[in-house]
């Protein structure tokens, strides 16, 4: 068991380092790579600047020392990243980590609500569908789930913002909160805090909804499949013979065994949620990390793009890592085969 934990930890570290290496490769070694391009741009725009100054600027922005030997550049880059130095945004002139730190809470705010909502709706629907397998309810919601799951969430987003945002003007069409709102979060000012949270939620509602609609369909279908499988198990018959109440069977026997395998999927989904926000945040002009990634892209601001990319990757690595480590604790059935892949 300990060996398993060690292996997983090692794997997480290897993954993070490989992704950093990939980022270095993309920045430095690609033909016409951003580091060279930025340096050429600096030389062209500032002819009076000395070589050392230019190299210093490149290093500051991209974490890359253009003239050092390659392995030194690489070490410098990776150690920089590991110590939290993501470079400096070329256009904004502030450290990338600052931009991300400012945007990240908003993405986490929207995505965690969306994930939780879709998970709860999905598993409840899926469980009921499984219990009523073959009924109109089951067939109707199965088709609806498949339909929703077959549309990309940004298309749902466009439809929602079109009708609820522009047409009926029920929701704002962008931004984090109203301009006249004071961002207050504190126990001492409960009224303002609640008002602010409500306003923020109102602004994020359409984004959350478009993610939820699509994701809930997927969870419902998976939960339905799992539950139907559990419903056919022998131990349920035994439980009924023992005279346990239907309610107890439904929650403790069916529900629990059907939800547990989804736990890993949920944690991995949490990890991937940051990356999934890229297009949605652009549709809703919602300045979270995904939004800044595209902003960085449009301005050819590679430090910003790479920084966001690395943060998103680390989120996934963490999600998978936590899922691997804790699944054995949550589902005792997995403990015996924990060492296997």
């Amino acid at each position, binding site marked *: 068991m300990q060996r398993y934990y060690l292996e997983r930890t090692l*794997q997480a570290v*290897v*993954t993070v380092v*490989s*992704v950093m290496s*990939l980022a270095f490769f*993309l920045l430095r070694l*690609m033909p016409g*790579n*951003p580091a060279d391009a930025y340096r050429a741009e600096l030389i062209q725009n500032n002819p009076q600047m000395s070589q050392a100054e230019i190299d210093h600027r490149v290093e500051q922005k991209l974490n890359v020392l253009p003239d050092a030997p390659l392995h030194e550049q690489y070490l410098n880059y990776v150690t920089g990243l590991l110590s939290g130095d993501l470079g400096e945004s070329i256009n904004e002139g502030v450290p990338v980590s600052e931009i991300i730190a400012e945007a990240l809470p908003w993405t986490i705010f929207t995505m965690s609500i969306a994930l939780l909502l879709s998970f709860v709706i999905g598993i409840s629907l899926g469980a009921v569908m499984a219990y009523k397998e073959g009924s109109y309810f089951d067939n109707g919601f199965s088709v609806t789930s*498949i*339909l929703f*799951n*077959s*549309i*990309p969430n*940004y*298309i749902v987003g*466009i*439809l929602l*913002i*079109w009708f609820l*945002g*522009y*047409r009926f003007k029920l929701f704002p069409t962008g931004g984090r909160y109203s301009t006249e709102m004071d961002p207050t979060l504190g126990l001492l000012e409960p009224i303002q805090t609640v008002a602010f949270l409500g306003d923020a939620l109102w602004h994020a509602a359409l984004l959350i909804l478009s993610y939820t609609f699509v994701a809930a369909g997927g969870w419902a279908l998976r939960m339905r499949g799992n539950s139907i499988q559990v419903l056919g198990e022998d131990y349920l018959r035994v439980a009924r013979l023992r005279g346990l109440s239907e309610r107890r069977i439904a929650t403790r026997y069916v529900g629990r065994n059907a939800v547990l395998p989804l736990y890993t999927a949920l944690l991995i989904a949490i*990890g*991937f949620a*940051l*990356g*999934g926000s*890229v*297009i949605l945040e*652009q549709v809703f002009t919602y300045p979270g990390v995904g939004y800044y*990634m*595209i902003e960085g*892209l*449009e301005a*050819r601001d590679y430090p910003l*793009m*790479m920084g*966001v*990319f690395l943060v*998103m*990757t680390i*989120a*996934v*690595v963490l999600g*998978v890592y936590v899922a691997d480590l804790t699944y054995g604790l949550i589902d005792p059935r997995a403990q015996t085969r924990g060492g296997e*892949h």
Partner: protein
Amino acid sequence: MSERTESLHGIDDGEAFEAVSDATMSRQERYRRLFDRWILAPGRIIWDDLRARIGASIILLYVLVGLFGPKLYKTPRVNQGPRSVAPLSEGLTYPLGTDNLGRDILAQLIHATPSMLQMITAGGLFVTIMGVAVGTTAGYAGGRTDRVLSLITDIVMTIPGLPLIVILAALLAPQNPIVTGLILTVNVWAGLAREIRSQVLSISRHSYVEASKAMGLSTPTIIVKDILPNIMPYVLITFVNAARQVIFASIGLYFLGVLPYDSVVNWGVMIDQAVSGGAMHVMSMAHWLIAPLATITLLSFGLILFSQGTDRMFNPRVRARHSTTTGSDDEPTDDDAAATTGGVVR
């Protein structure tokens, strides 16, 4: 070799079989079995399932439009019609109306299809080949090879796809749809590889694989003959899922303006232009936005129905019921089988 005179065209599949027909009759048999197993039986199952039939019809429609549409329908051009014409308002001249620059919307949809299909095919093939190669190698070879390949697979699976694609698309600015398809699926193969690896692990424990090993057959032969046929359904479903991934990602990136485009606009670019052109604000321009949205949704729905229907191929009972031709070689087969194997029979 009298058969050679019979085959007038001389370029069909028959040729390969004639050369060896006298010596090894069993090879014909084997090809026929493979054909039955990989193409005929799945085809029948698909046709028997309503969802798969609808899905297959939708996909076929898009393929036909992609192949022949651009030749049959006019090319979209600025000012080819009056601006912002509503659908069907001028008879069938502009069936889906025009956009704010007077371009025919149906023409835009049709002319964007071929590159979309190229993208999907390239992405699907890339995912399938990579996934099958890595998965079977890892699963069958085991040992250190397996550990290294599994580690690589796990790492690739952990990289969030969309952000990586955004960066790659920005750096490479792919113009060619095939290259775009490859970039969009650069990390999708890992999921298939992992799936196939575990399938191969369970299959290679079966007695018939052990029998093949005991007979001294080479590893590639065992993989091709004993293992690959069993994982074909997975492969097909993954192809479909990869196709959806390509559609979702490419439309999204074209919509964001990440991928470059020229005069032929992608469906995603159409959405972007419609949104920035004010289709959300003016109801009379709604058709401009609805047309690409509906096009994408229908294709995606077709693909998901198809993949749901093909799920049934996992079920060995369903398979057995439909793959009637194999195993009945000695007695005369039914019309269906005779017709489909016609190209191969002596």
